[in-house]
């Protein structure tokens, strides 16, 4: 692990280590991840089919072009593809979809005593936001007007200007 990362980012980087281990152990050539462009400016620069380099690294400055609905499914030798089918969805789309399909969700998303989790990560570096949204309908109404960022409660996003870029370059989801 990169010891020069700030503390909360080192915490988050443990997930990357686990992911690398399991990818190697089972020899996965593709990983489907639910990241979206509207979550974070680094994720906004992703491709739907995103080839990884050696050790799962993401070279954001040298990505292949991607046209319309044509996706390059070549698996890089010795590595894997990240597939991001929800890249174009927004946080609001997710909650509208949950409501339409009646999908059960973790209760931590719903407000208790004026706070709720808007984004869930590791304990210790994930914090609730102030909110009274206690149902799916409430959350949808909140998201239509909020100016707070979705990941405002995720400490490693705000630790330093480049922390999230360094995490993602190393293979973080």
């Amino acid at each position, binding site marked *: 692990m990169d010891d020069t990362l700030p503390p909360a980012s080192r915490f988050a980087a443990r997930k990357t280590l686990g992911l690398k281990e399991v990818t190697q152990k089972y020899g996965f050539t593709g990983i489907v991840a639910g990241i979206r462009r509207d979550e974070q400016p680094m994720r906004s620069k992703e491709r*739907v089919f995103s080839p990884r380099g050696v050790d799962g690294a993401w070279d*954001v*400055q040298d990505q292949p072009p991607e046209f319309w*609905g*044509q996706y390059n*499914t070549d698996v890089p030798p010795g590595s894997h593809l990240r597939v991001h089918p929800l*890249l*174009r969805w927004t946080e609001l789309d997710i909650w509208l979809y949950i409501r339409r399909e009646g999908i059960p969700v973790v209760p931590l998303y719903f407000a208790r005593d004026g706070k709720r989790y808007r984004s869930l990560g590791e304990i210790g570096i994930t914090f609730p936001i102030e909110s009274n949204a206690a149902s799916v309908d409430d959350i949808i109404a909140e998201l239509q007007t909020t100016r*707070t960022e979705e990941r405002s409660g995720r400490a490693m996003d705000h630790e330093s200007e480049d922390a999230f870029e360094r995490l993602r370059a190393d293979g973080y989801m």
Partner: protein
Amino acid sequence: MHLSFNIPLSTPLTQANAAEALRIVIVGHVDHGKSSLIGRLLHDTGSLPNGKLAAIEAACAKRGMPFEFAFLLDALQAERDQGVTIETSQIRLRSADRDIVIIDAPGHREFLKNMVTGAAQSDAAVLVIDAVEGMREQSRRHAYLLSLLGIGQIVVAVNKMDLVGYDRSRFEAVAQDCRSYLARIGVAHERFVPISAR
């Protein structure tokens, strides 16, 4: 191997009842002001999240630079340090009528493949041209690639009008130069707008 999907894999299923988002790519020569225009648009429409302006101010101060709206989309350290967009990115604007997806595209020739990736996902385009410099190599190249990709609706924004003292004849000269080039490559649905985005 290439895979082609007939299902709308990357289109949100939930917006079936809402108006489909309009996707607009901002293209043009390097340093003609694409990322600044987008930053300004987001700011003036009240679309910036809380704390974003302060974060940009801090990033500019750290580099001893005056405030730069381009820092909003230029998320890579390399982009901020070099003052140039490298990889395309997207940001959503909500309005009462419809959602708009703004796609930022790099203007440097070295990153044309990233510009094309952004443009291939758009419905319409804004071609930004510096009023002082006029049409440059990537202005023409980007316009040509847009027409090749089948994007026929182009708004030409003649930017930095403040630097030419808002001179109408300069605007018209740049617009005419661009109009004749677009006509040559078969783009007919264009509009010209003088702007000063910073």
